[in-house]
């Protein structure tokens, strides 16, 4: 495999908006006049900030009730994990797994992966940059699907409204969870994937 050279090493910079390759000396993209920068210097800060915000929002999302289910005059409140257990108890294994994966596995996984990437790219590392990139792409791709739980709540709320007989309302956790997902997505986006290559140690370069 031929030695890899980064755009920065080639004296080029890619416009993040239109993909135009310009000289590293250019302040702005000659095509779309977007501000060019070879590296986002605040990326690391942003990632951590969004990540922490996401984590903060994720705590009440799990403590407070996600769903307010009113059935026969009685209102029950269920948190995310209680909802999963309920579904499991009702033998709705597929739905239980989907909700579990979307509401717990994925967000937690994202926190871990983004944190891992952020920590790893701060200092010199020997990890295969392609694998890291793959991780990053997966996280970014999957982030939007984390909203599946919020969608379920939104749809159920819209559909099941029979007043005291049966109705479902979103709890405060739904808002927190949505915020958490948004924050983690922003964290993933804030991550400048180009940094993966910046601190590669020699020898690890070519795997």
């Amino acid at each position: 495999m031929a030695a890899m050279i980064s755009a920065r090493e080639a004296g080029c910079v890619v416009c993040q908006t239109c993909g135009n390759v310009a000289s590293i000396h250019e302040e702005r993209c000659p095509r779309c006049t977007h501000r060019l920068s070879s590296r986002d210097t605040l990326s690391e800060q942003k990632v951590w900030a969004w990540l922490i915000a996401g984590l903060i929002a994720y705590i009440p999302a799990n403590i407070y009730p996600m769903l307010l289910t009113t059935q026969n005059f009685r209102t029950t409140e269920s948190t995310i994990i209680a909802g999963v257990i309920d579904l499991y108890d009702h033998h709705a294994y597929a739905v239980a797994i989907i909700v579990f994966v979307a509401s717990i596995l994925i967000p937690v996984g994202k926190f871990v992966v983004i944190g891992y990437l952020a920590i790893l790219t701060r200092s010199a590392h020997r990890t295969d940059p392609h694998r890291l990139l793959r991780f990053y792409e997966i996280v970014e791709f999957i982030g939007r699907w984390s909203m599946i739980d919020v969608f379920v709540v939104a749809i159920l709320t819209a559909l099941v409204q029979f007043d005291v007989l049966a109705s479902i309302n979103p709890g405060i956790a739904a808002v927190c969870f949505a915020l958490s997902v948004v924050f983690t997505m922003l964290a993933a986006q804030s991550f400048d994937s180009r940094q993966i290559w910046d601190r590669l140690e020699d020898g690890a370069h070519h795997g």
Partner: protein
Amino acid sequence: MDERDLPEPEQAEPRRSRVSWVWLVPVVALAISVLVVWQTYSNQGPVIIVSLPSASGVEAGETPLRFRDVEVGLVEDVTFATGLEAVEAHIRLDSEVAQYVDADAQFWLVEPQVTTRGVSGLSTVLSGVYLEGTWDGEIGRPAVRFEALENTPLSRPGEEGTRIVLRSRDGGQLSPGAPVLYNGIEVGRLGEAELSEDGTLITMDAFIEAPHDQRLTTNTRFWDISGISIDLNTSGLSVNFESLASLVEGGVAFEALVTGGESIEPGQAYNVYTSRAEAQRSVFEAPVDQALDLAVILPADDLRLVLGALVRYGGIRVGEVTNIVGYTDPRNPDAGVQALVNFTVSPARIGLRDAETPEALIEALERRVENGLRVRVASEGLLGTTLILEVFEDEDHDDRQLETELVENPLLPAAAADIAQSSTDLDAIVSRVAALPIEDLMASAIDTLDGITALATGEDIRALPGNVNDLVAEIRSVVAAEEIGQALTDLSGAAEALETLVTGISESEGLSTTLTALENSETIISNVQTFTAGLPGVLTSVEELVAELDATPVTAAASSADRVLRRLERILSAEAATDLPDSLNSSLEELAGLLTELREGGAAANLNGTLASADSAFTSLEAAAGQVPAIVERLNSLVASLQGVAADYDDGSAVYGELRAAINDISQAADAFRSLARAIERNPNSLITGR
């Protein structure tokens, strides 16, 4: 590498000192979280523990605590008390009320209740049960552990009113929450009924709301209005019930049945009487204030004593019977089961005034028993059917003592019952009344009335007027008979002949003439004699006729009229009859004088015989004349009777007319007799002289 020779790109001066604005997001999120957490904890009050007999429907995290129907806490946990004797609900109070929940706070469980008075706690059917608490607005000694009340409390702190205690013998009709009525308006409610320690009384709290509690005085009486009261008496049947609720749930009413009375303190005890009438009676029976429990053993057979029967001493009420139980005397088991009658007595009213301690009281009582204090069953009331217990001083008492060891209460010796007197008398009266032959009497009366009816409607009575008619016709024919007229004419002729004779006698000069005259006179006299001899026969037949008439039932039928007419008859007899014989006598005396003259005139001896004949003729005449008033009398009475009969019949009837005529005829006959009698009376000589 030539790439390395490439000029280092001119990088913009990295803004390392800059801090991304994105940091604001987690900071704000953190701030909000901290704020929420802080607020939650700052609002959170202390946890109190309320122990319940069972956690029926109480759920952790679900069951709220309410105060005046506002949620002020939540059951956080439900655990068992140590020893598993109760369930403890851990309630997180809201901080704003926490300080008021002090030691006097009360808690109870609100569950749905459907009663006759309505549905309460309906919301709990759907929302589940909740705990309700009550406390006042003052901060007191704080407390953490509470015991839940079994029922909704009678009154809430701060509610104006008075709590009283009601005592009843039978609480079966009275349920908690039942109304207390005053003139039909609900002014309070009853609490839970509780049995007194000895099991003879039921006490219950009652709460009378302000301002109605002002009506409570020491003269107030309570009575049970549960169910229906049916009263059957002489004024009819009356059915009463106060309200539909009280019909099912029971209830009490109260009223000050007499004015006056002092105001009461909370906790005043009242008796609940079984009816208003009973309560009214109690007003006049002063209540027994201080009670001394006593007992007496009485023979169980025919013991008609009832619970609550009065105990009297010298006629004054001193207490009442509280309990009657079967009892076998251990000293005398052969006597079988006897009745142990427990009763209360006010010591002051039986003269045990000075004793201050119970021991002294018993001692004084012992002395009284030694002096003859006994208990017996006595009867009371108009009919003597109400039995009471009488405490009395027995004059000739035995030496039995007060027994304090045998049964729970001091046992007074019993004396023979005093129920015989009045009730025996009554029995006698009743049996005598029962023995009266009322039915026989009635039967006789009915028979008599039947007889009267049959008589009145019978043929005999109807035929009676006809008979009377015939009778009257007969009488008329008698009166109008030739013989009577002939007799009178003969009498008149005889009198004239006698007159001429006497004239001849006085004018004659020769004896022969006198003799012929005398002979003539003798024949005349014999004629008169024969007539007068016949006259009694006629008179007798008239008499018989009249007697027959008298004997007819007409007289009896017209008995009332008869009585009036008899009076008239008496008058007539006084007028016509009494004087007549005297007059006749005097006339005959004159005649006798005349004959004496004749004898002195030197008349022959035949004259004597003639005169003797004349004498006997006059005697007959005298007898006949003596009967005339009787005939007149009889005729009068006949007329009267007939008049009475006639009065009974209608004026227009033919019978009446006939009768009238008959009566007139008889009247005329009577008048003829009367005038004859008068004529003879006025001038008896005319009988002889013919003038």
